[in-house]
């Protein structure tokens, strides 16, 4: 029963990882951008939520109403002001600029909030659970997993049934022709990054409720999100959810064997999948 429990908890943890990954998957799908600062932006969202909760006395879940649009705006401005200048054939500029951004965010958070670990207090909901058979399911992990499913379904729907989604797909297929057809590429990219960071804000707040975080916590989150994207297959949002779940289960099973193996087990499953299915389990587009 312990093992079943570990698998179930891993699946729920996978929901959080899918939220880490969804933003990465989105911007890669639309503009082939890999944002090295993604993990630090997740942590930045958690700190913003911390400030909102302490300043306004809101619960972290209510703080989402401010942090999600706030991060969306930051994403749009970041893309228009800086990242759009790096877009092109050469891979190096976006990579190095987002790497510089990552160092800046980490150290700015260090200055603003010190290195002390923080966490978001969500109250009784944090420890509430429901019994299913002999397994106790936390209410918070269930909410996170359900949110991940809803977010991915919404993104999927947006991509295939809205004008914005059509603009994203058109720009993804051929930037120049999309521009000729009257789409403003710079604006479309801005919207994609805005949407990516709005999802990131959700991930950041859920991360902050689940565990403590500090300014250096971002890189591990970037890596988990990245692993979920690659395991699931590039450009496939449902694949990203599956990737997150596989990673989550690998980690909880690893931790079950030996607490020191938790993260390592996730990495090893990632490398094994890379070795046998280099394009991920459900690939849609080429890297």
């Amino acid at each position, binding site marked *: 029963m312990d093992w079943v429990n570990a698998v179930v908890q891993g699946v729920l943890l996978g929901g959080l990882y899918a939220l880490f990954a969804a933003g990465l998957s989105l911007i890669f799908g639309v503009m082939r951008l890999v944002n090295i600062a993604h993990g630090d932006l997740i942590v930045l969202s958690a700190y913003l939520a911390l400030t909102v909760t302490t300043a306004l006395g809101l619960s972290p879940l209510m703080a989402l109403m401010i942090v999600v649009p706030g991060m969306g705006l930051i994403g749009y401005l970041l893309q228009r002001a800086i990242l759009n200048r790096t877009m092109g054939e050469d891979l190096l500029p*976006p990579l190095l600029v987002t*790497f*510089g951004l990552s160092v800046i965010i980490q150290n700015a958070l260090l200055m603003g909030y010190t290195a002390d670990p923080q966490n978001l207090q969500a109250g009784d909901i944090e420890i509430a659970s429901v019994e299913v058979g002999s397994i106790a399911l936390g209410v918070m992990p269930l909410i996170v997993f359900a949110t991940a499913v809803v977010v991915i379904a919404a993104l999927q729907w947006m991509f295939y049934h809205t004008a914005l989604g059509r603009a994203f797909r058109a720009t993804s297929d051929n930037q120049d022709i999309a521009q000729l057809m009257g789409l403003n590429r710079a604006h479309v990219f801005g919207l994609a990054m805005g949407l990516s960071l709005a999802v990131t804000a959700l991930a950041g707040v859920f991360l902050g409720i689940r565990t403590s975080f500090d300014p250096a916590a971002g890189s591990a989150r970037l890596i988990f999100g990245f692993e979920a994207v690659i395991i699931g297959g590039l450009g496939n949002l449902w694949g990203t959810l599956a990737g997150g779940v596989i990673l989550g289960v690998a980690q909880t099973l690893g931790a079950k064997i030996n607490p*020191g193996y938790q993260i390592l087990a996730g990495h090893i499953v990632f490398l094994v999948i890379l070795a046998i299915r280099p394009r991920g389990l459900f690939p849609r587009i080429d890297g």
Partner: protein
Amino acid sequence: MSQMHVTRRTRLSTAVLILLVPILILLIAAPWWAGRADLRLMGEIALYMSLATLWNLLAGYAGLVSVGQQAYVGLGGYLFFALTMLAGIDPYVALPLAALAGAVIAAPVAVLIFRLRGAYFAIGTWVMAEVFRLTFAQVSSLGGGSGTSLSASIVRGMADGRSAREAMAWWLALGVAVLVIGSVVLFLRSRQGVALTAIRDNEVAARSLGIDIWRTKFIVYVVTGGLTTLVGCLIFLQKLRISPDAAFSVNDWTAFVIFIVVIGGIGTIEGPIIGTLVFFALRETMADLGTLYLIALGLVAIVIMLKAPRGLWGFFRDRYNIEIFPLSRRVTGLNKGA
């Protein structure tokens, strides 16, 4: 027309290469004229210069943008500690042995992560470094997660007395810097190096000329892995203490190195050398600012990437058409011929 020929040498490059001899002699003699703290700082500069040159070979020439070179720095440190303390091997034998082991380990790593492209390759290298870190944190004979110190008997065995040891650490660091920069220059002048430069300039065109791109990049990755491992040995020989977090630090061994190369000028031999000197000049004057200094460094790197993507040296080279290391070919005698 007969006077027209293609050469790599310029008057400047020849002058600098001749100047290099007295400079090297002066540097070798450093233990007799430099203070203890200066010697240590110079050793650190030499090791960072080596790391920057190696990263530049990967990212600037082979297009392999790695953010996981800390994997090999840490591996070097741990291999050196393990070979000397656990296996009882002489430190001077352990150094080349560790470099060889680093290259041998880099080969299967390359096979695996070469499946990822571009930016995903970058993060893949980072995952590899994390795997190394978490693995060494499990090795209890090397102190597990909290790390271990190099035992005093090994340090004493390397040279007699403190000043002799410090001189030896400097000579090793200088030797590695000369070895790394020298072999990168020679490599780039070789047949493989020309292939690599062709890949850098245009991968499709290079492939159509019959260059085996995978193999060329593989060789670069493995050689870089081995040499980075060697640099890692010396870094932790200087520090005398190792822990997983320090050994596999992405900030210390990759972020700083990337900033050095970007500021100095990526894709040139001179860039990392100049970048290292600028980096240490900034660090020595601004390190008191702590985190503000790191924020400034990140900002400078972003601005350079956006405004002058070829860095300081790229700027000077374009403006004055100069090159210190004789790498690119030029036609001379054109005026006489015409």
